[in-house]
């Protein structure tokens, strides 16, 4: 196996909760990301999935250093991004770019598309000679399927799908090696979604990009990713090759998450499914040990006392569970609606 492009080790981000205006004192912390480790090989697409508040976006922002990690290492090509400062960090950022969820709020409405895509060159002082930036920007627009003649238009003149293409062009501007796509299609209509997903696949193939793909839509993740990490309340509960994870989920949470996805097939209607009860608990006061145990149908006393570690199972996937599902085993069905 080749050396990973990105290796995240024991990444932690706690947001302090404070009380008081003048004398701020910490009264707790939202444990948004709590000990996450994974690695991404060059050219690979790693999916991060999970429900709202599981820490997937925070993880993305930590890797892009848009947030300061509380602790942990982010090794990009061997160098620790988490420890970098100043110009060193600025240079490293050329290799790590992000695509955001909302194509409406992630583009400055007062700037033309041309200047939005050009900005990375300005920041890094690249392509100084006259006309070079413009040529490169138009090349990028062409590459993501925009009309280069629309260089001088403003974001509001574009549809949602086209705006997302602008976001992709901006992310590609500096020839990054790693793209972090945070819910890149969830704000788009289904017919447009497929266009953007195909664009990302094509670009990855042509440019040899490595992608961290974050989404809550499990079908989209399955389509895009080589490996998938499932997060729950700030921790990875299962990490496996996509085929394996979807065919044979081992963590009860993964199984429940998969069972909850509606399938466009009316034959399945009303079929009994393993549904999870309740909601995701608050990350400010997460349950003890295994954070999933209050909702888990397989939980025993051990689950609230001993934290399960992410360990390799027989088939090579990593699972953090004391009682993982064996191949083909279904999660016990809960009584229909409590």
């Amino acid at each position, binding site marked *: 196996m080749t050396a990973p492009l990105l290796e995240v080790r024991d990444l932690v981000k706690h947001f302090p909760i404070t009380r008081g205006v003048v004398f701020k004192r910490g009264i707790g912390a939202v444990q948004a990301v709590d000990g996450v480790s994974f690695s991404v090989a060059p050219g690979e697409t790693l999916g991060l999935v999970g429900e709202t508040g599981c820490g997937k976006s925070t993880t993305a922002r930590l890797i892009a250093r848009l947030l300061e990690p509380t602790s942990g290492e982010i090794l990009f090509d061997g160098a620790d991004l988490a420890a970098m400062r100043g110009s060193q960090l600025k240079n490293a950022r050329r290799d790590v770019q992000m695509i955001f969820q909302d194509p409406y709020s992630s583009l400055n409405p007062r700037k033309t598309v041309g200047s939005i895509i050009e900005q990375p060159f300005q920041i890094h002082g690249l392509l100084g000679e006259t006309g070079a930036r413009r040529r490169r920007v138009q090349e990028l627009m062409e590459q993501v399927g925009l009309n280069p003649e629309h260089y001088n238009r403003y974001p509001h003149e574009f549809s949602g799908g086209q705006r997302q293409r602008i976001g992709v062009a901006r992310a590609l501007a500096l020839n990054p090696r790693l793209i972090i796509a945070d819910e890149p299609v969830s704000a788009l209509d289904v017919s447009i979604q*497929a266009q953007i997903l195909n664009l990302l696949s094509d670009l990855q193939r042509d440019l040899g990009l490595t992608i961290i793909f974050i989404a809550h839509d499990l079908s989209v993740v399955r389509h895009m990713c080589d490996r998938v990490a499932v997060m729950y309340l700030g921790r990875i509960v299962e990490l496996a090759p996509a085929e394996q994870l979807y065919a044979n989920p081992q963590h009860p949470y993964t199984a429940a998450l998969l069972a909850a996805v509606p399938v466009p097939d009316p034959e399945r209607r009303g079929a009994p499914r393993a*549904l999870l009860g309740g909601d995701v608990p608050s990350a400010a006061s997460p349950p003890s040990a295994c954070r999933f145990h209050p909702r888990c149908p397989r939980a025993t006393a051990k689950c609230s006392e001993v934290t399960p570690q992410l360990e390799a199972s027989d088939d090579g996937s990593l699972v953090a569970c004391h009682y993982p599902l064996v191949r083909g085993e279904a999660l016990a069905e809960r009584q229909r609606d409590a």
Partner: protein
Amino acid sequence: MSTSPLLDVRDLKVSFRTDDGLVEAVDGISYSLEQGRTLGIVGESGSGKTVSGLTLLGLTGSRRTEISGEALFDGTDLLALDEQQLRKVRGQGIAMIFQDPLSSLHPFYRVGAQIIEAIRAHQKVSKSAARARAIELLGMVGIPDPAGRVDAFPHEFSGGMRQRAMIAMALSNEPRLLIADEPTTALDVTVQAQILELLDRLQQQLGMAMIIITHDLGVVAETADQVAVMYGGRIIEQAESRELFDNPQHPYTWGLLRSVPRIDGGSGERLRPIPGRPPSLIGLPEGCAFAPRCVLANDACLHGRPRLESAGPDSHTAACVVGLDQRAKAWQATQQDLDDSAIKTAAGVSK
């Protein structure tokens, strides 16, 4: 099933006069729904699906709106009612739940108080009786400890609980029709599954009819008995749910079905998106609104608006002028995941 339908919408048109021109949001749709059944309305943003729902409750009326057609609810035309009469229908006859449960609950009032208000708006009951009913309703929609939670504020509820509270409020006067506009879009999948199951159970318990408006074909497949697919303000295909998924007859429906990656499908295969984007509803061209994006489009598609015509059993209709046998061949080719030119060849359509 020969009873008259609970809701019979005939040639409903809704248009808005705006500074940019006339927006024909809903352009002549007709459907009917019987007691106890669920209709799924599917479409992308701007297809008119939400406006068609809001109009039934008189929520789109303004000086700049033009509404025509009929919407017979139990024999009375909803579109002809005045505000006073509409208030009676809202809540009691037809209730609606919306996509975003946070913005549909008033943040300053306790959840229970908002449900009590809804009950007392329609029924002459004492405050304490209404409160007891509110607690009962919260229990019915699966909120744990309803007696303790009735005095909570909306911000103390999670997204799923808020949507449950909205459902409790919508059901407080035992409506005969519940319109759910993207009821689970703002929710996580595990919570979405809970809410869909809840709606299914409540419908069986209360025997009400339901309209589920959504962009998610998966949600439709899991909830609806019959489906209407909307595009550019019109219904372009309508059928029983099973029939629609087994034997879709409109190229747009095919496009929708195959542009969504399926969780039970193979990974890595290329998605086949619908090219282009949904049309603007201002000044739609004369022909089929989908023609500019359609693989099978020919000259005939550009002239005259296709009507819904019989396309299969159980009053399956589709609005497409391309011949049935041509479409059958094209659908076969589509299922084999051929590309567009191969589909054209298979269907015998010349470029």
